């Protein structure tokens, strides 16, 4: 099932498919909690070195799933970035805001939502 999410030639495929897998394993309560916190549909347009583009939709509004392809009907925010940037984001090497400011990340739509992407991608976050 998670193989469906992979695009060959993209480093972030692993990441996204892992995310998708995690989502399916979430309990309902956990999903609800994530959805409540995020409440949005993200569309990720990732481009790699070969100038190919992969599109994933992360639905954290209704269903709590990760899918290939564009959002239907429409994503709340579309995030355009490179393969490397996405990998860095997930690893915590760069945070969403920094990526945006340096132009590594572009958004269309509700950009506030894009800031939540960090939280979604990151594994576990320590508590203050």
């Amino acid at each position, binding site marked *: 099932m998670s193989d469906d999410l992979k695009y060959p030639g993209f480093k972030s495929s692993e990441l996204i498919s892992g995310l998708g897998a995690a989502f399916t394993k979430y*309990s309902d309560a956990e999903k*609800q909690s994530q959805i409540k916190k995020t409440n949005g549909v993200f569309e990720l347009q990732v481009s790699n070195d070969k100038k190919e583009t992969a599109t994933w939709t992360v639905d954290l509004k209704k269903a709590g799933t990760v899918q290939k392809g564009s959002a239907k009907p429409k994503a709340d925010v579309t995030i355009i970035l490179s393969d490397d940037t996405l990998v860095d984001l997930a690893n*915590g090497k760069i945070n969403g805001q920094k990526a*945006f400011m340096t132009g590594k990340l572009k958004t269309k739509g509700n950009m*506030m939502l894009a800031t939540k992407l*960090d939280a979604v991608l990151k594994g576990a976050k320590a508590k203050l």
Partner: protein
Amino acid sequence: MSFQSLISGSECAAPANPLSQVLKHTNGDRSLQQLHALPASSAAPAREHDIALAPTVSPGIGMPIPAEFLRIAEVNGRPELNEAWVMEQQNAMRAFEESKAQASWAAEFGNNSDIARINSLPTTMQQNVSGRGEFQQRPNYVSSMGMYGGSMPMGMYGMNNPMQYGTGTHFGAVDQKGKGKSREADFEAAFAQVAASLTQRETTSRIEEVKDVVDDVTEALKSSTLDEPENPETDFAKVWVHLQQSDNPPRQEDIAKWEAEFSQLMGTQREELDNEYGSSMQQAWESGVGDFSDKIFGDKPLQFDADGIPILGDYVFEKNNQYLDPSSSSGSLLSDAKALLEQNGSLTEAALMLEAAIQKGELGKGGYEAWILLGETRNMDEREEAGMKALLHGVRKAEEVGDAGEGMLSLAISFTNESYDRASHSMLLRWLQARFPSQHVPEETLKAMTTNSSWDTHTRITDLFLGLARAQFAQGTMDPDVQIGLGVLFYTNGEYDRAKDCFESALGARPTDYLLWNRLGSCLSNGSKPEEALVAYTEALKLRPTYTRAIYNVGVACLNIGAYKEAAEHFLSALGLQESTSGDTSEQLWFTLRRALLSMERGDLADLAKPEAKTSLDVFRREGLDF
């Protein structure tokens, strides 16, 4: 990306120039030009091209300048990332909300292009030169140009195509209102090219100079040969320069007419702008974080008040609380609880005592003390939701009785943990005002708390705290709480290194404050330094071995290192601590345990690790997890 051009190299100067020119003229309407700052993708080349073509840009029609534009201009003049960022975001939000307006303008021009024919343009231009009667046409020209001028920046920044295509339609619009004679195709082509370069500069030209432009365009047309389409710019440059230097005031009545039409047009646009922005910001905030039916906060979508503070339900007390039994203890539950905490006793138990105390009416100092202590205890015990509710209650109570400031830092931290950034900022601001009433908070900042985005409020509040910290430093003092506040601000914004520095300073003054050690640890952990984080957490646990949250954090750090088994073991030990007293266990712990188990590829155990399942922890022990 347009923003990139602002921050890198020589292009820095380019945008600044035209804008600073604009600043010199104080009566230009810039409500539309605010839309300049769209951080869209394809914008950069178009923008720079435009800038290059428009060496000096004169302001628009006589309208008051929105203050924001001045700031944008200033900001763009100094490539100061953060502030510019803030402005861009605000404007981007505005622009985002204005996309509807954009669409309608674009649509309008779309319609026009279908109807109009460029070939009749030169005619109208010519005729404009010739007769006064043609001035009837001008206001229309002007208003379309005005609108076009407005849509221009957006055209530049969002959609390259509409700009080019808008060019045609722009003149098409004029034509529509004018006469419709036809012309030779060649002339039309040349004119179109010239017009293309012209409109790119029209962004902010004075209406007064429109007539000149038109005149000059026609002159240029007449003088330019049809066979040199490759250099429209040079001719144009001449025209443009001539334009800048010429200073013919147009006829009075026309100015008035144009201004009236234009201001009316701009007025309506502006109102829409303001209303939409305010309400859409509010909406974005409220819908941005969970206006979604959820079961967690009581079957109601999560609402926020004006300051971004979530409106939570009432605190839910534990059902089976042994301390509620009137015969169980004779002394003060509150002091018992405090004693227990002093002795590093079980956090869950202390919380139960406190709950009982509250329910029995023993609220402690000012009626808030027990609440705040309960909140803090709950948070330490990794039960954020309960902790937040208790703290909210306590903080409000404290404000009521005049002891504002108590518990606010803890509450702000709670908000940060749950990603309620704006709430965190608001709370920190309130704390600052309560604790340092003499510190001046600008009116603007106070207003901004309710309207602006969290990125903006973050900057403002951080500046306030920084100012305070620096003042203290200058006096040779250091208030750990101010450092904590600052640290929380940086942490909320993802600036973990700076946050770490703040907490380290605070620790200098309070080396045995386990909360601070935990916080330092989290800064390191989220800042991708899990090993160092573990050191800090260990210190925290040395000081308070029952600090559930710290144990949780250790587990998280292990997860991030990839030590899944150890992580699971830590979570289980934390759960064990909680279970050993009658209290309920923390969901957060269960969730993260599941993650660890999944990473260990023990899906079977993961399925067992659900709070509802109430699986005995021994099950896990039998599986070889040692805790």
